[in-house]
């Protein structure tokens, strides 16, 4: 379980970094989203990965750490807003600079 989780985060991050270095706005935004997913999973796993453990409800001795879940929720909301903004800005850049290169130059 831990190994699979770690590999998944690693895969998402490496794909994200690869796309981030593409220097075209669309892959860059997708790359940022993938990195965002990886970060959210990572934050989530910081409350330790347990199986079949309830949330903080009732009177169980073991329960899943609720704080990372709250952090992840916050991070998801913020990440969503930022991605939306980055997308709109990329479209604006495409219209304004007539190019989807992140430096606003190069071939079409």
């Amino acid at each position: 379980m831990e190994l699979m989780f770690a590999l998944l985060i690693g895969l998402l991050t490496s794909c994200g970094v690869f796309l981030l270095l593409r220097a075209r706005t669309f892959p860059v935004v997708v790359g940022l989203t993938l990195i965002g997913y990886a970060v959210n999973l990572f934050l989530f796993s910081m409350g330790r990965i347990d199986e079949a453990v309830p949330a903080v409800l009732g009177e169980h001795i073991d329960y899943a750490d609720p704080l990372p879940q709250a952090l992840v929720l916050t991070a998801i909301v913020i990440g969503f807003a930022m991605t939306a903004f980055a997308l709109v800005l990329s479209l604006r850049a495409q219209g304004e600079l007539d190019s989807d290169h992140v430096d606003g130059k190069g071939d079409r």
Partner: protein
Amino acid sequence: MSHLPILPVLLPMIVGAVLLLLRGSMDFKRGVGLIATFLQIPLAILLLLRASEGTLVYALGNWMPPFGIVLVVDRLSALMLLITAVLAFCALLYAIRGDDAAGRNFHPLFQFQLMGITGAFLTGDLFNLFVFFEILLISSYALLLHGAGSARVRAGLHYVLLNLTGSALFLIAVGTLYGVLGTLNMADLAVRVGQLSAEDQPLVGAAGMLLLVVFGLKTAIFPLYFWLPRAYSSASAPVAALFAIMTKVGLYSILRVYTLIFGEQANTLAHMVNDWLWPLALMTLALGAIGSLAAATLTGLVAYLVVLSVGTMLAGLAIGTPEALRATLFYLMHSTWITGALFLFSGVLQRVRGPRFAARLVAGPALPYPMLLGGIFFLAAMSIVGMPPLSGFIGKLLLLSAAGMGHLAAWLYPVVLGSGLLALIALSRAGTTLFWRQTEVSASAEPLDALRMTAVLLLLLASPLLVVFAEPVLTYLAATADQLLQPQNYIDAVFPTATEASP
């Protein structure tokens, strides 16, 4: 419990939200925004006086730390609030003469940006710091693009993408710290880092260094500063002036995290970044100076002067003695206000010279009131370069004397003085081109605006005032530096009963 500490955050939040909903005239919005921003100044002064008596801790919703989120006002936070309030008021005073009408929602965005900045200075919780960072960033994205143009969109895209990556790194660092230490309250983190087992220390150290990358990106430290000159020089004048505090938010975070969480009590992790900061600070200084020589516009030149001032302050942080920190804080006050004034002044100059010449460093039309404009530029330039008798001189003198006589001084003296000389050359070249060389063209320019000049003069006035009141200011800053270097005070303030409560 007094509710005073949360007011600097609540005020801009409520005013910003109301401004967003109101359908009133522009003048009405301007008035509301200006009053709300002005109120920050007495608030900050009040908090400053309270914080001089003892650190204030405000538990949100009365949830006690470490479970709830706390706001902590110590001497450093209060000082940063005051710097922000004065700068923001002058920037807004400038903006209401027309720069705010170039796009929509300038005033709500300005308030939200203010909320993010004050929140970042006040919070005592690492994740909350992240949230406030995001608030100030997302409003800064929109402000940067305000009244857009292709240069702004291009610089804005870099700025947004870089900061999004930075946020991801911030979250990874925060997650690692929480995973190992089980808390995100800064005071609690500081306690637990001290009790860390040997095998967990490298992991926490890695998270700490990751935080340095994030803060370094915001502060514009050497390998991470390339976004700054472009973004700042393409922003409109009041926005660029407000952004003068943004690099200081990163600097504040570095100060806070590495004196508190990784402070004295942190065993092997104590002061772990100082050795890294020292060469980076000197590189930032040198490259800022070279960049200012190469700048083709006045706004670009001032943007590189921001990088230069960041390098100077980082050098003080890296030395890390109480004297060096005092010098850094003094230089921080001075450089924030004066670079803000310079950004506003270049905005004035752009309007007077007309759109064809704008801030480009080429001979332009004859200026109205050449003595007044030239005199103001001269004063600001002398102040930022660090010529006596203005405030930059005191800041640099304190920093140099804090370096002592050893190998630190051998590195610091030539770099600081050399970069000062380069900045002086760059500024004198800019000044002679702008004010003495003229071409025979009829300017299609606006007349000089009195209110805009007032905003510039108010900020510039800080420089002589800092010299005249250097004694009380330095006393306060010395106490601030001592407080920073004794993190136990901060911890005791957040956990007044920590010794009794812990099992």
